[in-house]
C-alpha cells in the first residue's frame, strides 16, 4: 500500500524496462526506500535510527563472515584463534574490534530506536505489527549477541554462558535436563561452543528476515511522525528519496565517526578485561557481568533475592527478566491514549523521562557488583520498571488530558494549512441587539 500520490517507477532505460517486466525488483526497491515511498515531512533525527540499525546489521554480517573464515570453534583453540586474528591476520585486529564494537553500536542504535517508539507511541494502531516484529528482532539480537560473546572463549565467555544457560535450570521439573540439553553437557564445553558458533552465524540472517517483515509492515500504514497526526494529504509528505536518503546520509556520517572513534582509539572501552584470560572452569571470576547492553535486564534478574510465595528467588528473577522484555509485546494494548506523540501528553512525558532514568539506573546497577547498596537500588528501579508499563501507562492514558494536536503535519511544519478550515471562514453574524 502507499498513498495515492506516491511517485510511480518509470524506468527510462530499455534494460531497466526489460528487467522491470521480468522481475520488478528495482520497482520494489524504488517503492520501499526510493522516491516511491512518501514519508511525513516532519521527521526529526530520532527517525534516523531505523536505517542506522539496518546498517549496523549489515556491518556485523560483513565483518562476522570474514572473522568466521579465521576463527576456530573448538574449545581447545578458540581463544588462540582469536589472538591469531588479532596478530597474524591482515587487518584482523580491525575486523575483530569492528565486530565487537559494532555489536555495541548496534545496541546503542536499537535502544534509541526503541525509546523513540516509547516516546512517540509508535506501537499504537495501525502500527502494532511493526512493533511486535521489532520486539522479536530485539530478542533475536540479544540471543545472537550473547552467543557471540561466548565465542572468544575467555573467562567472561565461559562464566557468562554458565550463568545464562543456568537461568533455564530455574524452570521447575524440566530445568536441569533442559540446561544439559542446551549445553550438550553439564557445563559449557566444546559442544556448547560449537552450537553457539553455528547459531551465532545463523541468527543474524533470521534477524534480516524479520527486518524485511518489519519494513514490509511499516510500508502498510507508512511511517509515523513526531506529531503523531496521520498523513492526510500530499503536502504532508516528501518522497523518501532524496529527502530522507540525504538526511540518513548525514546521520550515518555521525554514526560512523562515533563508531570509528571507538574502534581505533578505545576498542576495549566497552569490553571486560577478564575476557582476555582464557576460559578456566576451575577459576570463577570475582564479578561475572555480561556485556553492557544486558546490564538493565541483569539488574532485574538479580533484584529478586527472596523466595516469593512458592516461587524460588532464582525463578522469580528469571521470570521477571524475561517479562521485562515480553511486556513490550503488550504495549499497544496497555497504553490506550488516542494521542500518540509524547509532545502532546504532559503527564505521560514525565513518566517517560522517569523510565529513561530508571533504565539507566538499572544499567548501572547491573554492571556493579551484587552487593549493597546496588541490590536495593535495583530493587526499587525494577519496581518502577514494572509499575511503569503495567500500572502507570494504563492509568495515565485514561486520566490524562492531552494538549491540542495540530490539524495536520503541514500545519505543524509551516504554521498554517489551507485545508485546515472546516467551513467557509465567514465571521458569525452579530447578535441582534435587543
Amino acid at each position, binding site marked *: 500500500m502507499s498513498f495515492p500520490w506516491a511517485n510511480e517507477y518509470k524506468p527510462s532505460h530499455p534494460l531497466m524496462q526489460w528487467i522491470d517486466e521480468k522481475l520488478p525488483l528495482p520497482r520494489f526497491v524504488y517503492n520501499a526506500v526510493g522516491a516511491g515511498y512518501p514519508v511525513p515531512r516532519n521527521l526529526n533525527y530520532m527517525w534516523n535510527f531505523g536505517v542506522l540499525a539496518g546498517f549496523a546489521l549489515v556491518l556485523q554480517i560483513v565483518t562476522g563472515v570474514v572473522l568466521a573464515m579465521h576463527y576456530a570453534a573448538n574449545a581447545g583453540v578458540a581463544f588462540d584463534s582469536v589472538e591469531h586474528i588479532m596478530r597474524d591476520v591482515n587487518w584482523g585486529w580491525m575486523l575483530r574490534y569492528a565486530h565487537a564494537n559494532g555489536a555495541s553500536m548496534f545496541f546503542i542504535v536499537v535502544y534509541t530506536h526503541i525509546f523513540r517508539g516509547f516516546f512517540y507511541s509508535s506501537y499504537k494502531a495501525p502500527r502494532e505489527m511493526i512493533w511486535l516484529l521489532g520486539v522479536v528482532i530485539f530478542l533475536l539480537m540479544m540471543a545472537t549477541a550473547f552467543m557471540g560473546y561466548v565465542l572468544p572463549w575467555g573467562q567472561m565467555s565461559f562464566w557468562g554462558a554458565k550463568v545464562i544457560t543456568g537461568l533455564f535450570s530455574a524452570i521447575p521439573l524440566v530445568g536441569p535436563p533442559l540446561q544439559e540439553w542446551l549445553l550438550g553437557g553439564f557445563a559449557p564445553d566444546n559442544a556448547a561452543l560449537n552450537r553457539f558458533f553455528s547459531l551465532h552465524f545463523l541468527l543474524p540472517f533470521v534477524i534480516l528476515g524479520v527486518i524485511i517483515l518489519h519494513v514490509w509492515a511499516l510500508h502498510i500504514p507508512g511511517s509515523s511522525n513526531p506529531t503523531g497526526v496521520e498523513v492526510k494529504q500530499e503536502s504532508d509528505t516528501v518522497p523518501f528519496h532524496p529527502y530522507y536518503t540525504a538526511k540518513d546520509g548525514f546521520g550515518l556520517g555521525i554514526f560512523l565517526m562515533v563508531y570509528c572513534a571507538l574502534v581505533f582509539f578505545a576498542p576495549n572501552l566497552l569490553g571486560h578485561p577478564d575476557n582476555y584470560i582464557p576460559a578456566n572452569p576451575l577459576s570463577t571470576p570475582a564479578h561475572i557481568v555480561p556485556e553492557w547492553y544486558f546490564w538493565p535486564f541483569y539488574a532485574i534478574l538479580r533484584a529478586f*533475592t527472596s523466595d516469593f510465595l512458592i516461587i524460588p528467588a532464582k525463578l522469580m528473577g528469571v521470570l521477571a527478566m524475561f517479562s521485562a522484555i515480553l511486556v513490550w509485546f503488550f504495549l499497544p494494548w496497555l497504553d490506550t491514549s488516542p494521542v500518540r506523540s509524547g509532545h502532546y501528553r504532559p503527564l505521560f512525558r514525565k513518566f517517560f523521562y522517569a523510565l529513561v532514568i530508571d533504565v539507566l539506573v538499572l544499567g548501572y546497577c547491573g554492571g556493579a557488583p551484587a552487593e549493597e547498596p546496588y541490590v536495593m537500588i535495583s530493587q526499587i528501579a525494577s519496581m518502577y520498571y514494572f509499575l511503569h508499563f503495567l500500572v502507570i501507562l494504563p492509568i495515565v492514558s485514561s486520566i490524562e488530558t492531552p494538549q491540542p494536536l495540530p490539524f495536520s503535519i503541514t500545519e505543524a511544519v509551516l504554521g498554517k494549512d489551507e485545508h485546515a478550515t472546516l467551513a467557509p471562514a465567514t465571521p458569525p453574524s452579530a447578535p441582534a441587539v435587543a
Partner: protein
Amino acid sequence: MVRLFGPLVGLFFVAALLLSFGVGAYNAATQPTPPSAEKLFHMHPKDVKFSFDGPFGTFDKAQLQRGFKVYQEVCSNCHSLKQVAFRDLGALGYNEAQVKAIAKNWGTKAQTFDPKTGDRGERPNLPSDHFPPVYYAGQGNPPDLSLIAKSRHGGAQYIHSLLTGYVDQAGYKNEAGEELLKKFPDAKTPDGLYFNPYFANLNLAMPQPLTSEGQVTYSDGTKATVDQMAMDVSAFLTWTAEPKLDKRKQTGWPVLGFLLAATVLAYLAKRNVWADKH
C-alpha cells in the same frame, strides 16, 4: 484482558520485589556486612604516564627493547609469552639477524618429535616459533604474560604499580590512616605469599621480582632503577598484548578525517535537498 491482567502481573512482581527489598534492608540494618580488608586496603593503580597513552600516543621502541630485556632476564624465568613469536620482535626495532640470534639463544629450546623413530628431542628456536612454554615447579601458577596488560583493569599502570608496590605489611597504613594489621589481625599474609596492596586480594604468590637497581644491564645506557625497569617492562607487556596499537591509531586519524569531510558534505547535501521544505 491485557488491561485486567497487566496491572495484576505488575503488582505481582512489585510485591516480590518489596519482599526482597524488605528482607535486604532488614539484613543490611541489623547485620550490616563490614567492609572487607580488600575493600579498605586494595589500591588503584598509580597514575603513571606512558608514551602510548591517548589517541596520539605511540610505542617508544627503545623502551620496548629495554622492557624485553627485563622480561628476558627476570620475568621469563616463571612466565610464558605464548601468543608472541620471535619474528614479532622485529617490530621493536631489531633487525633480522638480531631476531634470529635472540631465537637461537633462547634458554628453553623448541621440542621436536620424529614420527619415524618416535624420538623426542630439542632444537634451537627459529624466528617463526612462538616463545616456548615455561615449566614452573614452585608455588602458585604464573600466568602467561602475552595478554596481561589487557586482562587487568589499569593495564600498564597496574603492572607498574604491582611491580613497584611491594611493601612491608607490618605497620602498613592506607590513605585514610588505618593500619591493616590493627584493623584486620587475621589479614596477615600467609607464609609463601607476599603482601602487595595493588593486588586484588592483597597477597600474591609472586615474590618481588625487581628488587635492586642495576638488576638488568641496559645496553642503551639508561639507568636501571626499579621504577625504570617496571616502566619498561609494563610498556613491553602492553606491546605484547596490543602489538597493532601504533598501526591502529595511525589508521584511525585518516579514517576520522575522511568521515568528518564526508559528514560535512552529507550535511550540506541534506540542507540543499531540504531547502524548500522547511
